[in-house]
């Protein structure tokens, strides 16, 4: 199973890792006593660990390869995918759905306000993930500045309330539309270009928006931000803090359901298929009369629309916005959600959002290592499960030969 070359390569890999981690893991400087501590035992751990990891990966890979070979040769039948069964068997998924639904409905009654607040945040990221999923997962446009549209939404509520006294419900669609218009403005020149340019330009755009918000004091009140943004009103009835959080929670649940509904409809519509097809084969799409730029622009603007609406909700939830909430890190997290969840898969994005947002909240002890874990998880996913937690169903057809 393991050949000599594998072992040789493994040794090289572990040597390389020892070299890379040497300053971090072995040398420790004590500046007070001015002595250097050589922690040699750490080196052995790194060497041994990376060697074993490498071997494990190799074994996994060869096993997978031989399996695929066997399937090709018809020696063994491909097992129907577990998740595929789970998702397509109503006997399994309906009760799961019911339990999950009840859990989420009863959540504010069962848990404290603090927990409810965290859950609201997680649900916001679910919607953000589903929005970005239209752009990245379905249409295949790498948008690294998604947070900019989120910021546009948040600031449109803050500013429209400050200057014109508009309320949450009026601004909710306005914020979405404003974000979408920004998306169109940005996308129009860029979407004609190749994919990688889009990534760079959106990355820059995200930073530009943040810098404008930070530095244009007269417009956005600079780094100190805007406070006293009202929470959503409930038919003019005044709500206490706890009640308004519960209210916001249910609003968010409705928003998630609405988003799932719309995204689901979109994906199975003609335009949804056009997004998907455009990612696969531009020439064929052009031959079918699909306007490349317009189609991509629709996806881009729709994704931005959702970010804008969640931005409004964000401003209403925290009652305060400042530019620090809209850094590149936010874009990265939302992108992680989409990639981890499985590009284009709604269920996957929901699960990934809940995991990525809730886990760090409950594992505060590890908060220092949060980014490290994010990075590691992403790398591991790319190696072992590039299709994401839940692969897009489209890609899981089983091949059957009839003739």
């Amino acid at each position: 199973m393991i050949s000599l070359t594998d072992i040789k390569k493994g040794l090289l890999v572990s040597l390389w890792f020892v070299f890379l981690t040497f300053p971090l893991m072995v040398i420790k400087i004590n500046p007070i006593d001015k002595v250097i501590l050589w922690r040699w035992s750490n080196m052995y751990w790194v060497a041994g660990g990376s060697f074993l990891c490498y071997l494990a990966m190799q074994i996994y890979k060869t096993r997978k390869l031989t399996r695929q070979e066997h399937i090709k040769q018809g020696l063994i039948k491909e097992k129907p995918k577990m998740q595929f069964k789970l998702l397509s068997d109503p006997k399994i998924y309906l009760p799961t759905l019911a339990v999950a639904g009840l859990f989420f409905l009863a959540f504010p009654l069962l848990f404290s306000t603090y927990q409810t607040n965290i859950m609201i945040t997680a649900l916001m990221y679910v919607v953000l993930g589903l929005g970005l999923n239209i752009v990245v997962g379905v249409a295949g446009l790498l948008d690294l500045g998604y947070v900019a549209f989120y910021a546009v939404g948040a600031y449109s509520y803050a500013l429209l309330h400050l200057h014109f006294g508009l309320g949450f419900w009026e601004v909710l669609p306005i914020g979405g539309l404003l974000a979408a218009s920004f998306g169109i403005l940005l996308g129009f020149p860029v979407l004609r270009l190749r994919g990688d340019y889009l990534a760079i330009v959106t990355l820059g755009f995200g930073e530009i928006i943040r810098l404008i918000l930070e530095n244009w004091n007269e417009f956005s009140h600079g780094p100190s931000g805007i406070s006293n943004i009202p929470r959503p009103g409930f038919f003019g009835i005044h709500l206490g803090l706890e009640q308004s959080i519960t209210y916001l929670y249910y609003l968010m649940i409705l928003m998630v359901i609405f988003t799932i509904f719309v995204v689901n409809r979109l994906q199975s519509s003609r335009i949804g298929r056009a997004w998907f097809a455009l990612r696969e084969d531009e020439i064929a799409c052009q031959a079918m009369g699909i306007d490349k730029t317009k189609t991509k622009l629709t996806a881009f603007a729709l994704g931005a629309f959702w970010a804008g609406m969640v931005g409004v909700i964000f401003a209403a939830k925290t009652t305060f916005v400042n530019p620090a909430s809209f850094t590149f890190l936010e874009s990265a997290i939302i992108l992680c959600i989409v990639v981890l969840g499985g590009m284009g898969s709604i269920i996957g994005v929901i699960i990934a959002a809940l995991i990525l947002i809730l886990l760090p909240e409950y594992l505060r002890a590890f908060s220092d290592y949060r980014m490290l874990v994010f990075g590691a998880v992403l790398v591991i996913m790319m190696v072992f499960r590039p299709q994401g937690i839940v692969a897009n169903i489209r890609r899981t057809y089983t091949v059957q030969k009839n003739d």
Partner: protein
Amino acid sequence: MLELKSINTYYGNIQALHDVSLNVKEGEIITLIGANGAGKSTTLMSISGIVPPRTGEIFFKRKPIQGLSPDKIVALGICQVPEGRHIFPDLTVAENLDMGAFLRKDKQQIEEDLEYIYALFPILKNRRSQPGGNLSGGEQQMLAISRALMARPQLLLLDEPSMGLAPLVTRRIFEIIKKINRENNTTIFLVEQNANLALKVADRGYVLETGRITMHDKASTLLADEDIQKAYLGI
């Protein structure tokens, strides 16, 4: 119906078409033959607006269409089946066909056209819920042609439909092409390397050599021409 007036098409600095002029009359099957790399596909791409010509004029039903975007050209009634088929492998057969009707809103007639296509290619009906990538080469070609038909083109551009297919399958595809031409009065612009077959189904033919039209005549005349026989028919 279609007229190209000395078009010049470039890929970057490289000129692929030199002063190509040709015309297609309504209802006929016309073929463009030539060796690999002669510029046949480029000619179709120029007509479709996917690789627009740098100079020259293209008229469709007496109206100039050069400079229009590909979707506008499809909307006018010109649809291309690109070389190598380019079906969507992850979409089902039915979804592939629906993509062909992307610009159409007339649900009723789309339904009728779908029935017509399923009658034309019963195999597609059997496989309508399978992904396009699972079809065999010949079935994929049928799907590609059908998908283009779903756009209800007046002019159908076919780029090497015989490519990579067994002779028997090729013959069947060519029969269908003739049938489409007869039954719907769809004008057909057929690009082929397989000159023998193409000239047999076509009314007229053009010969393209390194981006230039070198000959055009009735298909039967070309088929009998000695130079053509030597160069393209391997006789």
